[in-house]
């Protein structure tokens, strides 16, 4: 749950980038890290294997600036994508204020996307949170690959987006879509802190 410090007027939110293995979650964080001036970010912490696969999580603290008079900080986390790391995924997901689901647009990865999405829902449920109230966006990553290898955003929308969540086509390696995705999830999470919203509901 977002942490609000009324004395210093600070908000801190935890955002988790979720998705199947090699869909580009870490790449999203790396791109953000490379673009943001150093006074607005902290060290990027990566707990990765020697082959650069995320072992536990990546972590990037980000200073978004002042919103409605509150200094707003985001903590971006990724989870390991591989199926057998579910225990760690569940740990990282704990206390998340919002989730970015990074889908791999490649046709041959469709099943992995679906499996990961189901796994996300199950893990959110296990934390006792009503999935429908968890701010979430979907990013269709790798849209830069040759058209014959990937599905188009409308096709992916049909296949993955049952809850009519905001979606963002992206090429995280080179940047397009990364910013829009972050903005989308930020808006979703902060809406939960604004007037007339119920926020995340526990079951």
């Amino acid at each position, binding site marked *: 749950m977002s942490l609000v410090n*009324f004395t210093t007027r600070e908000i801190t939110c935890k955002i988790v980038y979720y998705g199947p293995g090699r869909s580009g979650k870490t790449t999203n964080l790396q791109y953000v890290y490379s673009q943001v001036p150093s006074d607005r970010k902290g060290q990027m912490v990566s*707990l990765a294997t020697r082959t650069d696969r995320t072992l536990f999580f990546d972590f990037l603290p980000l200073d*978004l600036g002042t919103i409605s008079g509150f200094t707003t900080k985001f*903590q971006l986390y990724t989870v390991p994508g591989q199926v057998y790391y579910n225990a760690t995924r569940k*740990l990282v997901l*704990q*206390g998340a204020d919002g989730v970015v689901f990074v889908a791999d647009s490649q046709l041959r990865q469709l099943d992995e996307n679906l499996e990961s999405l189901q796994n996300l829902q199950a893990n959110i449920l296990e934390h006792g949170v009503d999935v429908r109230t968890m701010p979430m966006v979907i990013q269709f990553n790798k849209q830069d690959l040759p058209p014959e290898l990937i599905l188009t955003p409308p096709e992916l929308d049909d296949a993955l987006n049952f809850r009519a969540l905001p979606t963002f086509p992206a090429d995280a390696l080179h940047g397009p879509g990364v*910013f829009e995705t972050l903005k989308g999830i930020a808006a979703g999470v*902060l809406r939960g802190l*604004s007037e007339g919203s119920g926020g995340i509901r526990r079951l």
Partner: protein
Amino acid sequence: MSTTTVVEAWAEAPLVRYVSQASARLVVVMTPAGQVLAQHGFARAMDLMAAAALGAAIMASSGALAQQLGERSFGALFHAGRHHGIHLALCPTPRGSLIVLTVFGRETSIGLVELFYEEFAAALKRAAPVEQVREPVLAKDFEADLNRSLTSLFRR
């Protein structure tokens, strides 16, 4: 911010006392999700967040390991380094479970840290309020601010 700062005021008095009793160099009180509630000794907010994220991760993974072994949880963890030691412990409070990470140097000892941590944990438990339903904090039109902030963040 290199002395003590707190997000929730009730944590301040117990923390100040603990730091001085245990001669701790750095202390972070956080939620199991890695959100910082109070800290002492960090020079940069961003270093603090990374320490909290890693501390919460250690606690979470050792807790998961404990469960696999049929233990309820490990009460506290201690690592000794050449110049620093860390003490990491779970502290149940009415505000929910909290994690306390303590970094200490050779001027004190793990024995003293453990001794005074017990008092600290008890003080936190006494001081913590039950988590309350929160009033909305942001104005309805926060999105204009968000756009402006993100645009400057990405220098667009």
